[in-house]
């Protein structure tokens, strides 16, 4: 995955390559961390089941993004600044 950032003040583009497996691992770790973290650090408005549901939803969404192949997920161009996220 590539994050490409361009701001008017910088003459060059910033390209951040993010390995897809890294996102996989971070999402897997999220579930583990949630199970271990003290409840007081989590939003009170949501119960454990809802938080677990959100984590599962994010993981399912990421799985679908991976299955879609290579494409431009987001491309924002405003006021001279440009941010693109490409799944490659």
């Amino acid at each position, binding site marked *: 995955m590539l994050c490409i950032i361009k701001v008017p003040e910088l003459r060059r583009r910033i390209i951040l390559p993010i390995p897809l497996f890294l996102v996989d691992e971070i999402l897997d770790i999220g579930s583990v961390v949630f199970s271990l973290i003290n409840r007081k650090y989590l939003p009170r408005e949501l119960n454990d089941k809802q938080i*677990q549901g959100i984590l599962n939803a994010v993981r*399912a969404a990421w799985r*679908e*993004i991976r*299955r879609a192949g290579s494409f431009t997920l*987001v491309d*924002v*161009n*405003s006021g001279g600044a440009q941010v693109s996220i490409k799944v490659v």
Partner: protein
Amino acid sequence: MENEKLQILKMVQEGKITPEEAARLLQAVDSKPAVTTTSSGNGKWIRIRVQEHGRQIVNVNLPLSLVEVAISMGLKFVPEEELRGVDVNALMEAIRQGVTGKIVEIDADEHKVEIIVE
């Protein structure tokens, strides 16, 4: 899922977590719902485009299968009255059946938002 369970057991073996914590983690792993992701999108895409003064400023491309997953999960959190009579399932079914083209267009002053199925 088997990999996750093995990792948890390894952590117990290495003394990083207690057996009680491992039991909670294993329970969390088992309680993951089996999200069946089908290829019902049939290669279709949802494209969200925002224009400002006729110039495109935002372009988002989402595979239809991702939108289906997001909607099915989102519906669990959104109260029915918030949908205001919008039958989301019927909309998705229509898209699966072959509806393509612009499905939403919002034109407000300097901004224009389009949602397109391709």
